[in-house]
């Protein structure tokens, strides 16, 4: 590895890093203004996101151009591999924060609010009628009654029902697992220099990805309209939507990345030896897949 030194490619000065920082800056300003209630903020946010997309297109166009020009040797390829692996690891840690929150809430905070362990006084003085159960349909403040025995206003909305695991989520699990297989078939085809096979399997993967996202959206619509399961229904809704939402966002990103790879594959960018972009995206796709398994087990099923 360290003795494969030849000519490591150092790019010429590039404007994309600065464009990217500026684009994110504009997006954050817009997002902040929007959250503070300014309609103009939404416009700025849109502008910023547009600039981010412009940066991605420009930057990746440069990288693809350099790659096709043959500037990247084996050593550069290895750098990309390290880069992608640790980027994925950082994403794992991001999800870990939310999984950690889920476990803490289920194992500690909800039982403590129910009077277990060191939570006795909280329960007795604040919410004596609160029952610690999971899924948590009624938040502590929904259990308070006024002197006429009517419920007091709660800052949250009670949940009518939850999404059963062995319904759409199980189908989605099958879809994602299948897409993990199809992307592997695509890789095998690529290794045999079979471009048609590569493209068809990739197309199947992209399609499965978007079907997953479609089902997820349908599930959210059902949750909001029929079940009153929303971001605003206490910790169950919080953990449910944040975990599945960030995952869904990653699937969408991953599917778009796969789409770009598909287009590049159709243009004949990849060869048997030289196709890191494909592999990087495939790794990302498997990561998204594994996160889903965690979600299926801990958010939907158990």
């Amino acid at each position, binding site marked *: 590895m360290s003795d494969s030194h030849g000519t490591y490619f150092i790019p010429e*000065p590039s404007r*994309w890093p600065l464009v990217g920082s500026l684009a994110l800056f504009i997006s954050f300003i817009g997002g902040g203004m929007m959250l503070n209630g300014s309609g103009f903020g939404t416009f700025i946010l849109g502008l910023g996101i547009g600039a981010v997309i412009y940066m991605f297109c420009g930057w990746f166009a440069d990288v693809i151009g350099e790659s096709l020009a043959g500037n990247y040797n084996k050593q550069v390829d290895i750098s990309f591999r390290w*880069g992608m692996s*640790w980027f994925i690891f950082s994403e794992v840690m991001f999800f870990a*924060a939310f999984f950690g929150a889920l476990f803490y809430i289920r194992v500690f905070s909800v039982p403590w609010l129910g009077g277990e362990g060191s939570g006795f006084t909280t329960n007795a003085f604040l919410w004596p009628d609160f029952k610690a159960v999971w899924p948590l349909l009624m938040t502590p403040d929904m259990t308070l009654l006024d002197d006429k025995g009517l419920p007091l206003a709660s800052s949250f909305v009670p949940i009518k029902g939850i999404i059963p695991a062995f319904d759409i989520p199980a189908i989605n699990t099958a879809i994602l697992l299948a897409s993990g297989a199809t992307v592997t078939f695509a890789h095998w085809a690529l290794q045999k220099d079979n471009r048609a096979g590569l493209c068809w399997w990739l197309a199947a993967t992209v399609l499965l990805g978007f079907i997953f996202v479609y089902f997820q959206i349908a599930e959210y619509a059902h949750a909001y309209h029929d079940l009153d399961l929303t971001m605003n229904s206490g910790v169950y*809704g919080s953990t449910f939507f944040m975990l599945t939402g960030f995952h869904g966002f990653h699937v969408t990103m991953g599917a778009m990345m796969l789409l770009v790879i598909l287009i590049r594959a159709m243009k004949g960018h990849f060869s048997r030896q030289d196709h890191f972009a494909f592999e990087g995206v495939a790794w990302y796709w498997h990561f998204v897949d594994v996160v889903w398994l965690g979600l299926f087990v801990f958010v939907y099923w158990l």
Partner: protein
Amino acid sequence: MSYAAVHDDVHHDHKPTGIGRWLFSTNHKDIGTMYMVFALIMFFIGGAMAMVIRLELFQPGLQFVDPQFFNSMTTVHALVMIFGAVMPAGVGLANWMIPMMIGAPDMAFPRMNNMSFWILPFAFALLLSTFFMQGGAPAGGWTMYPPLVLQLGDGLPFLIFAVHFLGISSIMGAINIIATVFNMRAPGMTFMRLPLFVWTWIITAFLLIAAMPVLAGAVTMLLTDKYFGTAFFDAAGGGDPVLFQHVFWFFGHPEVYILVLPSFGIISQIIPTFARKPLFGYASMVYATASIAFLSFFVWAHHMFTAGMPLAGELFFMYATMAIAVPTGVKVFNWTATMWRGSMTFETPMLFSIGVLFMFTLGGFTGLMMGITPVDFQYHDTYFIVAHFHYVLVPGIVFGIIAGVYYWLPKWTGYMYDETLGKWHFWLSTISVNVLFFPMHFLGLAGMPRRIPDYNTQFTDWNQIISIGGLAFGLSQLILVWVVIKCVRGGEKATDQVWEGAHGLEFTLPSPPPFHSFTTPPKVTEAMAHS
């Protein structure tokens, strides 16, 4: 399109010119310089906030600023110093030195490197703009605990987005460092021949990649709790504000090692040079650093002993905290043993390094004291903890960075700095830093709480001494600026080796080094690596 790293010598030292050289840079040295300059500017901005704090605390009662603004000062001072001064300075040194130390032409991802830097000014523009918003700048402490932080006005989303933004920068920087060190070492530069500064930086990079996303998650939950109706930190909805503290400190304790490990690396380069002896216990240094990093993920709740935890948790985190002192002790022992019977000289970098050794250790000891759960109930949230972390952060880390600057400045500029001024800088800083922070121990033990603009009159004397020390420390840092400017503009020519006892690839390059460090990779032998 060029191969900057190709062998043709005609090509290799042409620099881009004008402002574009900096805005669009893909050069590790230029980016390193920008990082260092940015860190210095932030150091003075954060320092100015500290001066406001010390001015207000010069006397009991409220005199200059209102309590809300005072709290903004403590909060933003901390954020600026940690994320704006210390971390960028560490990354700046890594940028400058790592490619030269491992025999590489540049960093693995030069463009991404530039983005990591350029995010910083924008992120701090977001953060500092909150001073001009409805509700003012963040004032709930740098730890951003809910529910207090959620009472912030319009500034809240900007605070949170600034944290996200800085996290993106740190993660990209860390990935770059890992790819560079793993993949771009010169032939013969095996892992166990890496200079310790490079080792400490790889380990720091791993800590960054593991910790920063968790912080991003924590502040994202704050954002949704405030604006999207979630209940992560709201007991009425089934959540728990203490959950935030867990997630935050899961990031927060590794973060303190992210800050300190590069400083450890720097003094591990400097002490052998001026003791003219190889570093004592190289392998044990590597393993100790790795163990510290590993253990740092299992001690976070020592920040929460008084927040409410089951007894088993209090005990576990107490013992784990004690355990981390063992590898730290190994390092302190090794530095001391390196100096033992060395033929030492005390140039400025060495003085600052010895300062780190003594005063970091002092801060580490108070850390151990607070790690003992039952006694921490007395120390927690008093000036004692303020003394603790300022000892580890200022003479422990900032001094380390300054030591590195003095050590490598001749390499960067090609000129020797003014040694007399350097010595003045060291002695004035060391005396004033102790006048500034040592009495905080007494105040804390006597019960003075932190983050309060007013205090009981019995604390007046020490507070006045502290404020005088603070002013003296702040002014002493102007000497550093003067030394650096003087050195950039000229002086005695530095040799390639710069220091008589210096070893390592960076000292085989000319001073200043060529624009692209090693166009042809050098061959590294055992003798070169550990001597």
